[in-house]
C-alpha cells in the first residue's frame, strides 16, 4: 500500500481527472479494458473498422510503442486536407482532380482499416466518373459524416486506452518506477 502512495504522488493530478478513488484503481483497469473491447467489437460489427485495424495493432510493440497513434495522427492530418480540397474541387467541377484525391483517401483509409470511409470513397469515385454533380455532393457529405464518426470513435478508443494504461501503471508501481 505504501508503494502505491509513493508513486502516485507524481500522477496525482492525472488520477484526479479520471475521477476514480485510489482504492478502486485495480478494478478500474479491468473495467476500462472491458470498455475498450466493447467499443472495438461495436466498431467491427458496424463495419466502421475491419481486420486491417487489428493488423496495425499487431505492428505496435516495445520497439514501436506509439505506432498506432502515430499512423492515425498522420491519417487524420492528411485526410482533413484531402476533404477540404475535395469540397473546393467539387465547386470547381474538377472531376479528374477529385478522383486523384479520392484515390489517395481511399488508399490510406484502407491501410488503417477504415472500411466504411473506404467504401464511401469508392461510391464517390464512381460519381466523379459520371461527372454526376449531385451524386458527388451527396457522396462528399456522406464521406465527411463517416470520417467524423470514425475520428470521434477512435478518439474515444484512445482515451479509454490512455486511462487504462495510467491506471495499470499505478496498480503495478514497481514495474513503472523508471518512467
Amino acid at each position: 500500500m505504501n508503494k502505491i502512495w509513493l508513486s502516485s504522488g507524481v500522477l496525482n493530478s492525472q488520477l484526479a481527472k479520471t475521477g476514480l478513488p485510489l482504492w478502486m484503481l485495480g478494478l478500474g483497469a479491468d473495467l476500462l479494458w472491458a470498455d475498450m473491447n466493447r467499443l472495438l467489437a461495436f466498431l467491427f460489427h458496424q463495419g466502421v473498422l475491419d481486420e486491417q485495424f487489428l493488423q496495425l495493432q499487431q505492428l505496435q510493440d516495445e520497439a514501436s510503442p506509439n505506432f498506432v497513434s502515430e499512423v492515425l495522427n498522420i491519417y487524420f492530418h492528411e485526410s482533413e486536407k484531402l476533404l477540404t480540397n475535395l469540397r473546393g474541387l467539387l465547386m470547381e467541377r474538377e472531376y479528374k482532380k477529385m478522383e486523384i484525391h479520392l484515390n489517395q483517401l481511399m488508399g490510406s483509409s484502407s491501410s488503417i482499416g477504415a472500411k466504411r470511409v473506404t467504401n464511401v470513397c469508392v461510391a464517390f469515385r464512381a460519381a466523379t466518373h459520371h461527372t454526376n454533380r449531385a451524386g458527388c455532393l451527396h457522396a462528399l457529405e456522406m464521406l465527411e459524416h463517416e470520417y467524423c464518426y470514425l475520428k470521434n470513435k477512435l478518439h474515444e478508443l484512445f482515451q479509454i486506452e490512455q486511462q487504462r494504461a495510467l491506471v495499470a501503471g499505478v496498480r503495478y508501481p514497481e514495474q513503472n518506477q523508471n518512467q
Partner: protein
Amino acid sequence: MDSNSVVSWPRLPENMDSFGLTQEHSEEVHVLAVDDSLVDRKVIERLLKILACKVTAVDSGLRALQLLGLLDEQKMPSETIVGLKVDLIITDYCMPEMTGYDLLKKIKESSTFKETPVVIMSSENVMPRIDRCLEEGAEDFIVKPVKLSDVKRLKDYMTTREVKGESQDREGNNYKRKLIDTSDVSPSSPPCISSSTLPSSPSLVDSTIRRLKMTSTE
C-alpha cells in the same frame, strides 16, 4: 488534448527502432519502398522492420531513381552512389508523375538494377494491370492493404535469392533450389495466370497470385 491528435503520448523519434542497423550489415536485406502516401510508407516501413529488413522509404518514383543513380542526368558513373545495395524494391502503382509501372520499366532497363526484384502494390484488383506488371518483370503484385503475411512471403523470397548467391552448389535444400529455379522462368508465362480456364473475376486475383507461388514450390 488538441483536436487533431489522437493521444498525447510522449513522441519518440522515428528512427528509434533502427538503432544498431548500420551499412556494414551486408547480410541484412535492404528494401527500397516507394509510395506517395505517408500513411502507407509508415505501415510498409514498420512491416519490413519487424522482419528485420533495412528500409529506405521514398515518396516518388523520381526520388527512387535518384537514389538508385538512374536519373538521366546521373548516367555518369561518378555520380552513382557507391556500394548502394538494394535487395528488393517495393512500389505503389498509383503515384502522381511516375507510376509504379513506369518505375518498374526504368529499373528493368538499367544495367545495375535489372536483376533486383521489384514488387508492385495496388489497392485496385485489376487483372490487366497485374498482368502488365508481371510481363514487364515484376516479381510479385500485392493487393493493398498490405499485411504482415504479404511481406513475410516476400522476405522468404529474398532469403532464397541470397542463398543462391552465396552457395551455388549446396545440395541440401531442394525446396529452396526449386523456388529459385522457377523464379528464373519468365514471369509472362506462369501457367495459371494466363490459363483460359480461370474466370477473370477480380475476386480471384488474390488466390491467383498465391496459387502462382504455391505451384512454384511443388
